[in-house]
Protein backbone atom coordinates (compact mmCIF):
# COMPACT_ATOMS: atom_id res chain seq x y z
CA UNK A 1 0.00 0.00 0.00
CA UNK A 2 1.40 3.39 -1.00
CA UNK A 3 1.96 6.23 1.45
CA UNK A 4 -0.11 8.72 -0.55
CA UNK A 5 -3.40 8.54 -2.40
CA UNK A 6 -4.88 10.67 -5.17
CA UNK A 7 -8.19 12.45 -4.65
CA UNK A 8 -10.36 14.73 -6.75
CA UNK A 9 -12.07 17.51 -4.80
CA UNK A 10 -15.07 19.53 -5.92
CA UNK A 11 -16.80 22.58 -4.49
CA UNK A 12 -20.26 23.79 -5.51
CA UNK A 13 -22.47 26.87 -5.35
CA UNK A 14 -21.63 29.41 -2.61
CA UNK A 15 -18.72 27.26 -1.40
CA UNK A 16 -17.14 27.37 -4.86
CA UNK A 17 -17.35 31.17 -4.80
CA UNK A 18 -16.50 31.66 -1.13
CA UNK A 19 -13.43 29.41 -1.10
CA UNK A 20 -12.33 30.08 -4.68
CA UNK A 21 -12.02 26.36 -5.42
CA UNK A 22 -13.97 24.35 -7.94
CA UNK A 23 -12.26 21.17 -9.10
CA UNK A 24 -8.87 20.10 -7.72
CA UNK A 25 -6.86 16.91 -7.91
CA UNK A 26 -4.21 16.31 -5.26
CA UNK A 27 -2.19 13.73 -3.38
CA UNK A 28 -2.76 13.28 0.33
CA UNK A 29 -1.57 10.90 3.01
CA UNK A 30 -3.25 7.56 3.43
CA UNK A 31 -5.97 7.57 6.12
CA UNK A 32 -6.87 11.22 5.55
CA UNK A 33 -10.48 11.98 6.51
CA UNK A 34 -12.87 14.19 4.57
CA UNK A 35 -12.58 16.77 7.40
CA UNK A 36 -8.75 16.73 7.23
CA UNK A 37 -8.84 17.10 3.45
CA UNK A 38 -10.83 20.32 3.82
CA UNK A 39 -8.25 21.69 6.27
CA UNK A 40 -5.37 20.70 3.97
CA UNK A 41 -6.94 22.63 1.11
CA UNK A 42 -8.14 25.58 3.18
CA UNK A 43 -6.00 25.82 6.33
CA UNK A 44 -7.30 29.27 7.23
CA UNK A 45 -11.03 28.61 6.68
CA UNK A 46 -13.48 27.33 9.23
CA UNK A 47 -15.58 24.38 8.13
CA UNK A 48 -19.10 25.80 7.66
CA UNK A 49 -21.68 24.55 10.15
CA UNK A 50 -24.12 23.46 7.50
CA UNK A 51 -21.65 21.78 5.15
CA UNK A 52 -22.74 18.74 3.16
CA UNK A 53 -20.20 16.28 1.81
CA UNK A 54 -20.30 13.58 -0.82
CA UNK A 55 -17.88 10.77 -1.56
CA UNK A 56 -18.03 9.32 -5.05
CA UNK A 57 -21.35 11.09 -5.71
CA UNK A 58 -23.07 9.77 -2.60
CA UNK A 59 -23.73 11.58 0.66
CA UNK A 60 -21.02 10.95 3.25
CA UNK A 61 -19.74 12.64 6.41
CA UNK A 62 -16.67 14.53 7.49
CA UNK A 63 -15.31 11.62 9.57
CA UNK A 64 -15.03 9.22 6.62
CA UNK A 65 -11.54 8.13 5.55
CA UNK A 66 -10.68 8.76 1.90
CA UNK A 67 -9.57 5.96 -0.45
CA UNK A 68 -7.30 6.25 -3.47
CA UNK A 69 -9.21 7.59 -6.49
CA UNK A 70 -12.11 9.01 -4.50
CA UNK A 71 -14.01 12.07 -5.58
CA UNK A 72 -14.93 14.24 -2.60
CA UNK A 73 -17.41 17.15 -2.84
CA UNK A 74 -18.22 19.96 -0.42
CA UNK A 75 -21.39 21.98 -0.77
CA UNK A 76 -23.97 24.02 1.15
CA UNK A 77 -27.61 22.98 1.81
CA UNK A 78 -29.35 22.22 -1.45
CA UNK A 79 -32.02 24.55 -2.83
CA UNK A 80 -33.38 22.86 -5.95
CA UNK A 81 -36.95 22.11 -6.87
Amino acid sequence: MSETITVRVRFFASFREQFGLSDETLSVANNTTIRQLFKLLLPDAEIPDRILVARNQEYSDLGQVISDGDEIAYFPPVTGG
Partner: protein
Amino acid sequence: MVILLQETFDPWQQMQHYQSQQDWQNSVGATAVFVGTMRDFNEGDSVSGMLIEHYPEMTAAYLEALVTTSIEQYQLLDCLIIHRTGSIKPADAIVLVACWSAHRAAAFDASRAVMEKLKSEAPLWKKETLLQGSRWVEKNTPDANAF
Protein backbone atom coordinates in the same frame (compact mmCIF):
# COMPACT_ATOMS: atom_id res chain seq x y z
CA MET B 1 -37.07 8.44 -15.75
CA VAL B 2 -34.92 11.48 -15.01
CA ILE B 3 -34.37 14.37 -17.41
CA LEU B 4 -32.03 17.28 -16.64
CA LEU B 5 -32.62 20.12 -19.08
CA GLN B 6 -30.67 23.28 -19.86
CA GLU B 7 -33.51 24.74 -21.95
CA THR B 8 -36.99 26.00 -21.12
CA PHE B 9 -39.57 23.21 -21.16
CA ASP B 10 -43.34 23.08 -21.31
CA PRO B 11 -44.41 20.71 -18.51
CA TRP B 12 -47.69 19.74 -20.18
CA GLN B 13 -46.09 18.99 -23.53
CA GLN B 14 -43.54 16.83 -21.71
CA MET B 15 -46.33 14.98 -19.90
CA GLN B 16 -48.23 14.37 -23.11
CA HIS B 17 -45.15 13.18 -24.93
CA TYR B 18 -43.87 10.94 -22.15
CA GLN B 19 -47.20 9.34 -21.36
CA SER B 20 -48.03 8.61 -25.02
CA GLN B 21 -44.96 6.38 -25.25
CA GLN B 22 -45.75 4.13 -22.28
CA ASP B 23 -47.26 0.65 -22.36
CA TRP B 24 -49.02 0.93 -18.99
CA GLN B 25 -51.71 3.35 -20.19
CA ASN B 26 -54.67 1.01 -19.66
CA SER B 27 -53.57 0.20 -16.08
CA VAL B 28 -53.25 3.77 -14.83
CA GLY B 29 -56.03 5.02 -12.59
CA ALA B 30 -54.22 8.00 -11.06
CA THR B 31 -51.63 10.54 -12.16
CA ALA B 32 -50.32 13.14 -9.73
CA VAL B 33 -48.08 15.86 -11.13
CA PHE B 34 -46.28 18.66 -9.38
CA VAL B 35 -44.67 21.55 -11.27
CA GLY B 36 -42.47 24.12 -9.54
CA THR B 37 -42.25 27.42 -11.39
CA MET B 38 -40.01 30.45 -10.99
CA ARG B 39 -41.77 33.39 -9.32
CA ASP B 40 -40.70 36.97 -9.98
CA PHE B 41 -40.70 37.71 -6.25
CA ASN B 42 -38.95 36.05 -3.26
CA GLU B 43 -38.18 37.03 0.34
CA GLY B 44 -39.56 40.50 -0.27
CA ASP B 45 -37.50 41.26 -3.41
CA SER B 46 -38.15 41.32 -7.14
CA VAL B 47 -36.22 38.54 -8.84
CA SER B 48 -35.47 38.95 -12.55
CA GLY B 49 -33.76 35.62 -13.16
CA MET B 50 -32.03 32.66 -11.60
CA LEU B 51 -29.08 30.37 -12.18
CA ILE B 52 -29.38 26.73 -11.17
CA GLU B 53 -26.10 24.98 -10.50
CA HIS B 54 -25.85 21.22 -10.14
CA TYR B 55 -23.29 18.47 -9.64
CA PRO B 56 -24.02 16.68 -12.88
CA GLU B 57 -22.96 13.10 -12.06
CA MET B 58 -24.38 13.14 -8.54
CA THR B 59 -27.61 15.00 -9.38
CA ALA B 60 -28.52 12.47 -12.06
CA ALA B 61 -27.54 9.50 -9.86
CA TYR B 62 -29.43 10.87 -6.86
CA LEU B 63 -32.62 11.46 -8.84
CA GLU B 64 -32.43 8.10 -10.63
CA ALA B 65 -32.19 6.34 -7.27
CA LEU B 66 -35.10 8.42 -5.95
CA VAL B 67 -37.25 7.33 -8.92
CA THR B 68 -36.36 3.66 -8.40
CA THR B 69 -36.98 3.60 -4.66
CA SER B 70 -40.22 5.59 -4.97
CA ILE B 71 -41.66 3.25 -7.61
CA GLU B 72 -40.96 0.36 -5.26
CA GLN B 73 -42.09 2.06 -2.04
CA TYR B 74 -45.37 3.39 -3.42
CA GLN B 75 -46.04 0.61 -5.96
CA LEU B 76 -46.10 3.10 -8.80
CA LEU B 77 -46.47 2.22 -12.45
CA ASP B 78 -43.95 4.94 -13.26
CA CYS B 79 -42.26 8.09 -12.01
CA LEU B 80 -40.82 10.96 -14.04
CA ILE B 81 -38.60 13.77 -12.76
CA ILE B 82 -37.58 16.72 -14.93
CA HIS B 83 -35.34 19.48 -13.54
CA ARG B 84 -33.96 22.59 -15.17
CA THR B 85 -30.37 23.72 -14.79
CA GLY B 86 -28.64 26.87 -16.00
CA SER B 87 -30.30 30.21 -16.63
CA ILE B 88 -34.00 30.52 -15.69
CA LYS B 89 -36.54 33.31 -16.26
CA PRO B 90 -39.68 34.09 -14.25
CA ALA B 91 -42.61 31.80 -15.15
CA ASP B 92 -40.19 29.09 -16.36
CA ALA B 93 -40.88 25.60 -15.06
CA ILE B 94 -38.03 24.52 -12.76
CA VAL B 95 -39.11 21.03 -11.75
CA LEU B 96 -41.74 18.46 -12.70
CA VAL B 97 -42.52 15.32 -10.70
CA ALA B 98 -45.12 12.92 -12.09
CA CYS B 99 -46.27 9.68 -10.45
CA TRP B 100 -48.59 7.12 -12.04
CA SER B 101 -50.41 4.46 -10.02
CA ALA B 102 -53.51 2.29 -10.01
CA HIS B 103 -55.22 4.18 -7.15
CA ARG B 104 -55.03 7.80 -6.08
CA ALA B 105 -53.50 7.62 -2.59
CA ALA B 106 -50.21 6.20 -3.91
CA ALA B 107 -49.83 8.85 -6.61
CA PHE B 108 -50.62 11.68 -4.17
CA ASP B 109 -48.31 10.35 -1.46
CA ALA B 110 -45.47 9.64 -3.86
CA SER B 111 -45.49 12.94 -5.75
CA ARG B 112 -45.33 14.93 -2.52
CA ALA B 113 -42.66 12.71 -0.95
CA VAL B 114 -40.51 12.78 -4.09
CA MET B 115 -40.68 16.59 -4.18
CA GLU B 116 -39.70 16.76 -0.52
CA LYS B 117 -36.72 14.45 -1.00
CA LEU B 118 -35.67 16.35 -4.10
CA LYS B 119 -35.85 19.71 -2.31
CA SER B 120 -33.99 18.52 0.77
CA GLU B 121 -31.32 16.28 -0.80
CA ALA B 122 -30.85 16.59 -4.56
CA PRO B 123 -27.60 18.50 -5.27
CA LEU B 124 -29.00 21.61 -6.94
CA TRP B 125 -28.49 25.23 -5.94
CA LYS B 126 -30.31 28.41 -6.93
CA LYS B 127 -28.74 31.84 -7.29
CA GLU B 128 -31.23 34.67 -7.73
CA THR B 129 -30.60 37.76 -9.84
CA LEU B 130 -31.99 40.83 -8.06
CA LEU B 131 -32.31 44.43 -9.22
CA GLN B 132 -28.93 44.97 -7.64
CA GLY B 133 -26.59 42.02 -7.62
CA SER B 134 -27.40 38.38 -6.93
CA ARG B 135 -27.69 36.01 -3.97
CA TRP B 136 -27.64 32.29 -3.30
CA VAL B 137 -30.89 30.92 -1.93
CA GLU B 138 -29.89 29.75 1.56
CA LYS B 139 -32.24 26.88 2.19
CA ASN B 140 -35.50 25.25 1.18
CA THR B 141 -38.41 25.38 3.62
CA PRO B 142 -39.60 21.90 4.57
CA ASP B 143 -43.20 20.93 3.81
CA ALA B 144 -44.63 19.81 7.16
CA ASN B 145 -47.30 17.65 5.52
CA ALA B 146 -45.03 15.85 3.09
CA PHE B 147 -44.70 12.44 4.75
